[in-house]
């Protein structure tokens, strides 16, 4: 069984829960940007959390199926069209052989997920099916989908769950405003007090320069302390000796536009990171559309771990449905 891609959409890639453990050689974790939505889609079609799905960005693909196929669409709010007729998202759908699936215009959010019963069955590379396009690794031939691609689907591994849809209370909101919790740290001491204040007290707006590697915000800018730059660090006050980049870390090249690194982040570089979005809020950031008004709120490690537990409990609740 396979999906035939008629039109690929803007950026449609095969993603699972990621390729953890190769960041030390520059290979990012990858995986679904909004992991919670991807897992919910897998739940509905009887897959495990680890199965690969298609991540669609802003505009979705047009595809046909060659056999009866069980699917679910989750994530950003998008009309799901089967042979032109709209069907609900966050709900299991049955397609017949020859059916065409396409998507309308996004009503909110940025990325949505298509899970297929049996999972997207491209080969695993370094333990994951996620696409790392820059490294031509994983996914379908190491790249985003193109028209004419035939995407293989695996054999079902489990029974379909009784539940046919994810209840409202377990679905994320797709709002035009966002609060992201961050932890200070890394090189925050290179900011002035005023620079730190602006980051967590002013509003920032997500720009269209937002992809799987990082998301760029515009706002009042930050201020750096004046210092003699250390040897090897580069001349701008936002420069450091090239170091590893935490996933979720916030860098402000030149001091104007903060960039939050996401799951396809470059693993290191020479810009000071001044804080890090906590792990529980990385999915929230993945859902944000350009223009989203964002506030960064500083929390402690204990608060970050509490938020992480709450996210885990929410995921467990989805899987217990």
């Amino acid at each position: 069984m396979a999906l035939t891609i008629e039109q690929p959409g803007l950026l449609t890639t095969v993603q699972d829960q990621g390729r953890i453990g190769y960041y030390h050689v520059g290979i990012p974790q990858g995986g679904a940007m909004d992991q919670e939505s991807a897992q919910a889609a897998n739940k509905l079609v009887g897959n495990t959390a680890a199965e690969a799905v298609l991540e669609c960005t802003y505009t979705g693909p047009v595809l046909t199926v060659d056999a009866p196929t069980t699917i679910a669409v989750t994530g950003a709010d998008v009309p799901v069209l089967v042979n032109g007729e709209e069907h609900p998202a966050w709900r299991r759908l049955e397609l017949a052989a020859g059916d065409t699936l396409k998507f309308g215009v996004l009503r909110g959010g940025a990325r949505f997920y298509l899970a297929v019963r049996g999972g997207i069955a491209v080969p695993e590379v370094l333990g994951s099916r996620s696409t790392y396009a820059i490294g031509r690794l994983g996914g379908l031939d190491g790249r985003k989908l193109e028209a004419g691609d035939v995407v293989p689907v695996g054999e079902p591994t489990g029974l379909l769950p009784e539940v046919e849809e994810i209840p409202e209370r377990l679905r994320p909101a797709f709002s035009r405003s966002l609060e992201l919790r961050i932890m200070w740290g890394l090189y925050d001491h290179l900011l002035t007090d005023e620079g730190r204040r602006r980051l967590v007290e002013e509003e920032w707006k997500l720009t269209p320069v937002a992809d799987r590697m990082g998301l760029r915000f515009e706002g009042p800018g930050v201020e750096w302390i004046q210092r003699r730059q250390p040897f090897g660090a580069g001349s701008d006050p936002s420069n450091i000796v090239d170091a590893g980049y935490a996933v979720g870390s916030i860098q402000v090249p030149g001091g104007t536009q903060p960039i939050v690194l996401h799951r396809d982040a470059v693993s290191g570089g020479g810009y000071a990171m001044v804080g890090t979005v906590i792990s529980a809020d990385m999915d929230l950031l993945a859902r944000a559309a350009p223009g989203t008004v964002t506030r960064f709120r500083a929390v402690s490690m204990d608060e970050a771990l509490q938020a992480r537990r709450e996210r885990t409990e929410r995921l467990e609740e989805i899987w217990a449905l």
Partner: protein
Amino acid sequence: MTETLYLPTARYTWGGDEFLFVEFDEAMNLTANYLATTVAQGLTALDLDGVVDVCPANASLLVRFDPDVIKAEDLKRRTQELEGQARESTQYTAETRIIEVPVWYQDPYTAEVVARFREGYHQDPSGTDLDYAAKVNGLADAAEFIRRHHESPWLVSMVGFVAGLPFMYQLVPRDRQLEVPKYLSPRTDTPPLTVGHGGCFACIYSVRGAGGYQMFGIAAAPIYDPEQHLHDFRDFLILFRPGDLVKFRPVDEAEYRSIQQQVEEGTWRYKQAPVTLDVEAALADPDSYNRTLLEALDGADD
């Protein structure tokens, strides 16, 4: 300021709830890099449950952990113990290898991209990156810069940015370090295997893509082989590891084409030899130490 073996205790900080960050020095130097690499190797060897990725960098270390499995403070304590052990060692040596990397300097591929990104991108739009690099280092011309670039070996001080890209620090005293600013604004294109330079670091771009380093030439053979065709990539798709030493060897177009042919046929192998990285010797008498390294490479089979 000269480099010494002594550094004050490292700075420990958190990158959110999943990353521990350890800065051995704000500035680049051999000791900080040695400590980063050594503590990283120690942590990898401990194989602690919940430690999922150990990423040594030029003068710092990033550790990814799963806070559901290992407590942040426990990881910090174990890392501090390793830092203490690394500092107590009077040896500051590591067994490693030196690899010869053939480079076609002033090649047409990077030259074409250099020419495309001038106005608004580069400090000196009228010349080439090599001319500029020579000028800011007070050297006579591009040829002298190229000679300085390949005559002394480099230490792979970090692997990353993108898959398998090595950052390299030349084993020469600070007053002989080649320093060149990055582009004013990053290019959207860099040919794969471009030999680049930013700050005091050389790099080889493993894949095509964006980049801000100055461009001097092109390496003749792959350093990243996702299909693992070549012998040097049988075990892993990435050539370089932190702690490797690199000797650039200038090649002309004919030899570049010949190496490309060998890569095509699957017969290419890097010339390399086992050596000992000795930080103290490299700091005390770099010229003599570098001669030892190059003699080891000369003795290796082609």
